[in-house]
């Protein structure tokens, strides 16, 4: 079974989110801070939907799945308050894998349509959102 996180569109979306956050922070290339910022921005809507503990569980699950693909994330962890403890370095490249896993989990639970709507609420001005957000209205 192909997981939603493995789909090229999910990976591409994760990379665009990271690039967007990197630019917002004045950088050119996504770094670990961009990964943390994406996670932090997703924390609010996901806490609303799943509670603080629920968000922490989702992020922890996403990190576990991401570590299987990118062992360089091995030292990363989710702190009790739901924030991400990251280490700088080449692991930043694997950040997109983590974000893709988190988005993949959202798609698994509430479907692509609702997931894209939630992401659109958080990043309404994300470049390319017209073509990618809400492109598939399936449940």
């Amino acid at each position, binding site marked *: 079974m192909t997981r939603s996180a493995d789909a090229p569109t999910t990976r591409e979306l994760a990379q665009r989110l990271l690039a967007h956050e990197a630019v917002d922070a004045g950088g050119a290339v996504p770094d670990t801070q961009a990964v943390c910022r994406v996670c932090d921005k997703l924390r609010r809507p996901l806490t609303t*939907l799943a*509670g603080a503990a629920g968000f922490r569980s989702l992020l922890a699950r996403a990190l576990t799945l991401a570590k299987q693909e990118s062992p360089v994330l091995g030292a990363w962890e989710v702190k009790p308050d739901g924030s991400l403890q990251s280490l700088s370095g080449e692991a930043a490249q694997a950040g997109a894998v983590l974000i893709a896993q988190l988005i993949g989990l959202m798609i698994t639970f509430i479907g692509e349509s609702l997931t894209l709507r939630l992401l659109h609420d958080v990043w309404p001005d994300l470049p390319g959102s017209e073509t990618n957000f809400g492109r598939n209205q399936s449940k």
Partner: protein
Amino acid sequence: MNEQSKVKINQLPTGVPGLDEILGGGLPEFSFNIIAGAPGCGKTTLAHQFIFANATVERPALYFTVLGEPALKMLRYQQQFTFFDAAKLNNAVRFVNLSQDLVERGLQGVLEEISKQVEAANPSIVVVDSFRTVLRSEMHEGTNMAVQTFVQQLALLLTSWEATTFLIGEYSESEVRDNPVFTVADGLFWLFQQVDRNSVVRKMQIMKLRGQASVPGLHTFRITEAGLQAFSRTLGLVGQRKTYSTVRRLSMGIPTLDEMMGGGVPEGDSLLIAGSSGTGKSLMATQFLAAGIRAGEPGIAAVFEERPNEYTARATEFGLDLQTPLAEGSLEVIYLRPLDLSVDEMMQEILDAVKRTGAKRLVIDSLAGFEMALAPSFRTDFRESLYRMIFALTAIGITILSTLEMPETFTELSFSSYSISFLTDDIIRMRYVEIDGELCQIMMVVKMRRTAHSREIRKYQITTDGIVIGERLKNYVDLITGIPQPVSVLRSEELLLNRKV
């Protein structure tokens, strides 16, 4: 207080088919309501239907989740319903998680957070799911006053902010007494899920509704992919039966039978055709429907023992064309055999078909099949339910013909094993008799309310042209027992007896 000075309470559509009618028009605006019931009985789905039917971006719905089902899972499942509108999410319908507030700051923290969110969003609807978990966290010795104060403050806040509120909780009926929540509530919706043998029946009761008259009693409801659908006990048909200064007679499609009935069946009557298997009850019912179609009166057949195509195909064998009116929409054949049906659902089906077709005639073929299609728990109330249904349908001018299979006995003539003859205005009895070593069929008009009718017992035959009624059987006695005696034999015996004396 005159009518003009009274405050007008607006009624909001619930989004649940049939429920507005049960509530007496809709849900009172700004009311503070509780949806209670055991797990899995449809409480959350009911609330979701209401919010998706009413919430707007300008006046959104705030859906507070507490320690129960998180919104993430709620969305996963609720989006499967057709009423779910993803476009409303996060603008017209907003979810807020209060778990943290409850855990860290208790009731006061929950109240403060709800106040903050309500003041910021200006919602028209507020739902707290599950409210029970909010209170349970504080339900221990010496905290009743705190709970009561919390409920009152919450009700005051939400009403002041002109919000219509639903508190959802898993309560049992024994908790209704002395519970401050129920005292404060304007409306109390109780959902039940009853298991009887292998079937499950869902029912709801409006135990309390301030400001307007709801339909009392238990109403069945069903949950489908469209959400809840409720079936009012009365389906709004509580009016008086129509009285006609001149009763119109409807042809049965069998001229001789019309004569026997004094000109046909009176419009708006309930007619029962009783007889054993193979006596032609269904055929007579089909001829009744076909006669209506020919006269420009649309009809409905509710069949339980054969499928619609079988039903119309059988009619064709007797030269009756039901396929054409079926295709044109002047005839509907309702076929329901779910085995957990309620009479109210059947009635709703019929009423919907009446609206679609403008039907004047209804055939129920047969009552035994109808009863078999009901969930076991409804079968015990079959007579009472049938009474409500027949009364309601005849009240709107529908003429009903029901067939009833009777066990054939050769010692007596019973009209109904169900003792439902009191439900009917008119009764026709068909049965087998043995005459001269041959199994023959006879019929008689046993009862015609308010009208004169033939008392004759007639022999009849089932032909390719339908039922053909013959002459009165004059030369036999004890016909209704099924084992008649020729009069000539009796006379001979009488003469013989007289000679001996």
